[in-house]
């Protein structure tokens, strides 16, 4: 067992984790930040589009520029980073933690406070041959093209017309890939109109009330069969259409990635609006296990902007417990962030999240 000089462990160096580090280091708190990826920033490192909202929420800034801005806020002397490393277990009540450092050796540490900011993972949908090579999650497509500079395919079928499906379709055109068709099972496009108009203008055919029935191919994708859906989401016989593509991109939503919280014994509840099963938390972002906090997509799928504020809230609430800042100063900062979060969720697209949070606050985990 290592005797640790760190006060807090932050798991995940995406928007939530980096913001938590910023607030903690500002209060003079020493942090160990563990991240699985080779570079910090989480999914921001591949978001080439400009953010919406107000200036305090980085509106007009491209996602790829945000990690550097956040790291500027962090006092490097107070934060130790283990990148390409994985937290593989949390054992309360002393919060002993196993870290697979550099994917090579296991280290054991213990922490009074832990912030879980592990993000989300992509959903899969059911269709024949959905495991064929050449079928990627939308995030994987973004990683290949925007992080590593690779065109993920020549001809693509995009499944899902939420914001991610729309944005990634546009980014595929920028990278030199042909998006042959975008299909959406719902009767209307789910994402912002501004993104939808952009890709329709670029000539990508969008078909709503349509889903994928089958991927064609044996070693890899050679095509796909789509089918129309009626108002009850049943497939309409005779509307099958074959399309020749070498890649299928699934943009069908995300689910919170919170296995570590379950391992630590954090109680879970089901809230559909926040992405299904999630660890229970209070408005301080603390879970049912003493000292373990959670922030960002890991506790409810939302947006990078709200993940950042939740990360700050988790950091500030720990600073308050550690009495590193006067209670008054802490409370003022916490209130500012809560107001900012409310503002972010006040638009029509925030309604679902607000409803989810209302359910969460009304429920105890017992």
């Amino acid at each position, binding site marked *: 067992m290592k005797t640790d000089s760190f006060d807090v462990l932050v798991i995940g160096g995406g928007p939530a984790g980096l913001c938590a580090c910023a607030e903690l280091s500002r209060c003079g708190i020493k942090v160990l930040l563990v991240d*699985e*990826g*080779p570079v910090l920033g989480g*999914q921001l490192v591949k978001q*080439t589009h400009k953010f919406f909202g107000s200036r305090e929420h980085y509106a007009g800034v*491209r996602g*790829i520029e945000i990690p550097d801005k956040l790291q500027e806020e962090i006092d490097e002397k107070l934060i130790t980073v283990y990148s*390409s490393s*994985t937290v593989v277990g949390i054992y309360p009540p002393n919060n002993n933690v196993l870290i697979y450092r550099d*994917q090579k050796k296991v280290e054991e540490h213990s922490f009074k406070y832990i912030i879980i900011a592990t993000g989300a*993972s*992509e959903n899969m949908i059911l269709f024949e041959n959905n*495991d*064929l*090579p*050449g*079928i*990627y*999650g939308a*995030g*994987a497509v973004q*990683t*290949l*093209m*925007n992080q*590593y*500079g*690779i*065109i*993920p*395919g020549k001809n693509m079928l995009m499944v899902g017309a939420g914001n991610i499906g729309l944005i990634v379709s546009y980014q595929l055109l*920028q*990278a*030199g890939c042909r998006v042959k068709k975008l299909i959406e099972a719902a009767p209307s496009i789910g994402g912002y109109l501004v993104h939808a108009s952009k890709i329709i203008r670029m000539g990508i055919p969008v078909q709503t009330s349509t889903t994928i029935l089958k991927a064609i191919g044996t*070693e*890899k994708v050679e095509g796909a069969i789509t089918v129309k859906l009626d108002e009850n989401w049943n497939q309409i016989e005779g509307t099958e259409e074959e399309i020749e593509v070498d890649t299928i991109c699934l943009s069908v939503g995300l689910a919170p*990635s919170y296995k570590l919280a379950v391992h630590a014994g954090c109680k879970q509840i089901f809230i559909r609006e926040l992405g299904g099963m999630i660890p229970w938390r209070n408005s301080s972002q603390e879970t049912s296990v003493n000292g373990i906090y959670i922030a960002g997509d890991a506790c409810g799928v939302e947006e990078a902007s709200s993940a950042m504020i939740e990360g700050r809230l988790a950091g500030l609430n720990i600073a308050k417990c550690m009495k590193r800042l006067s209670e008054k100063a802490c409370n003022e900062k916490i209130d500012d962030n809560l107001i900012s979060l409310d503002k972010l969720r006040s638009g029509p697209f925030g309604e679902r999240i607000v409803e989810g949070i209302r359910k969460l606050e009304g429920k105890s985990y017992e």
Partner: protein
Amino acid sequence: MDRIKNHPILDFEKNEKITISFEGREIECFRGETIVSALSVAGITTLRENVKTHRPQGLFCAIGKCSSCLMEVNGVPNVRTCIVLVEDGMTVRRQNGKGVLHED
């Protein structure tokens, strides 16, 4: 898959050229990219065989969460090749099933 030549927003700086081996075949790639990105450019899409169905499996999530890209790297099985960077002289093999643990 090809590398992007021109992009309206992004610049892709090329690092030092290095070589890895895939199933005995030499593959040129660049320091700083993942094993999967190097394999993709070389046209390799099947990364392993499914444990139960023995069907070919390729990249899916690219952020180390889904296990679809587990391969044997330098003799070690179950390496998530989507988040591990290439190193000069690295040996990469397709993994069948759960892979085999080699004694040191």
